[in-house]
């Protein structure tokens, strides 16, 4: 198998790679080719094998069969570090940096500028500033990384990888937590890097972005290669068909007419509710059978609103009412007791208990609600787990598997199941579709609609405006930690939401002049 002359030389050639975990064949004879200077999207549903392919190539775990050639030479890195030395840098979806160290220290970890055995802090900071300036980021690099938003942490991780003079840059869901402006900056950088001859692998669930940035796409499904295409000549429906293996209407746009929900009963209401320095006081009514969307940029107060509503954070002013009766929400326990549920944005740290089984994770909130003295018997637990694994199509359908071994989409479904098992009256979902593939994405949106039709009140946060418009009966727009606009019925569209968010700039300009 000699190389045939390609338009651009193949930078990375992966041939016949396979990987099994026990009886599960995660990858079967997959080929993948990355050319120098191209941006190559790697697509597939959750569990299709994208992450496994990346990890097998970069040596995070050993592969069973197959070879990897980098620039024509066979390489077999035995660890991510060895891959990095060979010139393959990976930035994962969940940022793998040290939040307690400063941004500069993170950027130059392992290779700090030294003089006489002492780290040159000033030099390091200066270089960190210069490096981040390329990414349009002007921040205090001496502050701990953990004090910055996920977006900044992500850009830092990418900056570090780029600066390690990689020949190959693998970006696993780099844009999942970036807002549009940050995405534009990132894409600018990616194009610049590609021009320098670096090959970039781009894993994303945002098809718009795939079409915007990538030259070619490789699609995986169930651990097998489906195909490799030029992005420009690949119709979108064809791409989705490749990913899902079935025809699917491109977007789920079956939103019930908003007006019919007008007369619904109020489930929970919040009057002048807020916390100083957290979220400005707001009024919010949540009705049975209604989805309220929270829209706004990162850091605009969406998650903060959700945490106040659920009771994860204590309000210092205002009144909360459940079914008309005043209540105090001092802790998540109070929220759970009043029939609230909360799926947090950070699934790994705030959601799942990775070591425990799917079954135990599902029954956790219900058991906490019932109290110590009324344990669910093993049979009841099995029954509940079986019901939700089936209802939400959690895969693999093994309730005894540690939930940490499931893909992100399935972990999200487990968290949904955890709350549905408590028969809640209000469900707060923070970015329920973040980092989830197209198929599961549509499924979760369909679920949100169904739950709503069953009379549940839903408060949903999403960065994807198309998505919010699809399922919301009302949309609350936030800006600078305050609720600034509420849209209902016909007024809900992407343009209006953007206008409400963008009114910001004008307001600041006015204040600046005053």
């Amino acid at each position, binding site marked *: 198998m000699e190389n045939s002359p390609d338009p651009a030389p193949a930078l990375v050639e992966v041939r016949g790679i396979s990987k099994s975990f026990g009886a599960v064949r995660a990858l079967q004879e997959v080929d993948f080719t990355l050319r120098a200077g191209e941006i190559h999207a790697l697509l597939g549903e959750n569990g299709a094998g994208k992450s496994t392919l990346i990890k097998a190539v970069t040596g995070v775990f050993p592969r069973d069969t197959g070879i990897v050639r980098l620039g024509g030479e066979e390489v077999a890195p035995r660890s991510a570090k060895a891959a990095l030395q060979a010139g393959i840098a990976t930035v994962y979806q969940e940022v793998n940096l040290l939040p307690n160290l400063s941004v500069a220290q993170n950027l130059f970890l392992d290779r700090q500028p030294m003089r006489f055995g002492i780290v040159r802090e000033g030099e390091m900071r200066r270089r960190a500033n210069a490096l981040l300036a390329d990414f349009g980021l002007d921040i205090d690099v001496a502050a701990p990384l953990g004090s910055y938003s996920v977006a900044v942490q992500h850009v830092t991780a990418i900056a570090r990888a780029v600066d390690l003079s990689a020949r190959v840059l693998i970006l696993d869901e780099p844009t999942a937590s970036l807002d549009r402006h940050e995405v534009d900056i990132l894409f600018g950088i990616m194009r610049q890097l590609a021009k320098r001859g670096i090959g970039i692998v781009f894993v994303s669930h945002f098809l718009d972005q795939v079409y915007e940035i990538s030259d070619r796409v490789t699609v995986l499904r169930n651990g097998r290669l489906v195909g490799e295409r030029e992005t420009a000549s690949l119709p979108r429906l064809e791409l989705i068909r490749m990913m899902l293996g079935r025809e699917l209407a491109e977007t789920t746009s079956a939103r019930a007419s908003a007006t019919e929900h007008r007369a619904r009963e109020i489930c929970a209401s919040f009057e002048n509710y807020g916390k100083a320095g957290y979220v400005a006081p707001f009024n919010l009514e949540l009705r049975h059978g209604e989805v309220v969307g929270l829209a706004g940029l990162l850091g605009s107060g969406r998650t903060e609103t959700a945490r106040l509503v659920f009771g994860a954070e204590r309000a210092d002013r205002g009144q909360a009412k459940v079914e008309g009766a005043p209540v105090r929400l001092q802790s998540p326990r109070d929220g759970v007791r009043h029939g609230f549920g909360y799926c947090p944005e950070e699934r790994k*740290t705030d959601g799942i208990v990775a070591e*425990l089984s799917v079954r135990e994770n599902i029954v956790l909130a219900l*058991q906490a609600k019932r*109290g110590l003295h009324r344990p669910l018997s093993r049979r009841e637990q099995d029954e509940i787990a079986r019901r939700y694994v089936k209802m939400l199509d959690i895969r693999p359908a093994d309730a005894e598997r540690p939930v940490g071994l499931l893909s992100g989409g399935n972990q999200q479904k487990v968290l949904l199941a955890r709350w549905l098992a408590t028969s809640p009256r209000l469900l707060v979902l923070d970015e329920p579709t973040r980092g989830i593939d197209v198929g599961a994405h549509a499924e979760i949106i369909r679920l949100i609609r169904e739950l709503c039709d069953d009379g549940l009140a839903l408060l949903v946060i999403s960065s994807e405006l198309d998505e919010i418009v699809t399922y919301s009966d009302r949309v609350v727009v936030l800006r600078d930690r305050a609720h600034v606009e509420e849209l209902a019925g016909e007024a809900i569209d992407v343009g209006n939401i953007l206008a409400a968010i963008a009114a910001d700039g004008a307001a600041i300009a006015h204040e600046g002049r005053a």
Partner: protein
Amino acid sequence: MTALLPRRGLAQILALIVILAVDRVVSPQFFDLRLQDGRLFGSLIDVLNRGTPVALLSLGMVLVIATRGIDLSVGAVMAISGAIAASLADSHGLPIVLGAALGAGLVCGLWNGFLVAVLGMQPIVATLILMVAGRGIAQLITEGRIVTFSSPDLVWLGNGAVLGLPVPVAIALGMLILTGAVVRGSALGLLIEATGGNARASELAGVGTRAMILSVYVWCGVCAALAGVIAAADIMGADANNAGLWLELDAILAVVIGGTSLFGGRFSLVLAVLGALIIQTMNTGILLSGYPPEFNLLVKAVVVLAVLLLQSPKFAGIAGTAARLRRSKA
């Protein structure tokens, strides 16, 4: 079906069998049992009897460690409860003696739990306080002397027999069953494992993580107090300087040998107690073999390393790869 096989405990059971076999070699009469005055005697019974304090400590310790904590104060709590029991034994009835001693353990546990769960101190630091101060408190109670007593009730607790078994062994067995019934019979076990596995997520799921953490330290204190009473009853006196000295380390070791991770989460009561027995079987074996007791510490280290290696998935992976290589070469 596979769930029924005790895969988790295999390494510990194998280790115990190997050590018992070695003990049999160094001391041919190791497995001999005889019945005398309604009580069994023999090296095996001795192992169980001597292993009781650490077994009791490990019952509390395993729950604390499951919440991602640790309790360094159990040895000092043993000294406190032993001192209280010895001081009261000749002037008060057994119920009052036991109540006071166990009550002291409960208060100690509440203190540790308060520091960790309410004030949010790191467990190792929080319990270090009582580890140091507790021995001082015990010495204040005994006024620096070794307090002896002759109350037959309390002596029976250390030296009597129930159905042929030494009373301490019966108590430890009873505590294992009681703890197991409370923890696994209620939702406590699941909620403790969830708290240890991911406290933030558990809190958000409505689990009262503070109450969980507080209650495991309280239980650990009570178990330590009971161990202290038995240790005092055994020697018919309380020595505030030496009672339970360094036993917190044996208890932690027992829990770790029992396969519970110091990072919290999944735990096993039975395997923790089995860990305590493994430690004591080694101790007794070395005593019987006639080697100097100092040797004990080295052997202990080697056995602990072996058990931990057997449990380690990474080691299993390396061993598996080595076996495959050998096979493919053949």
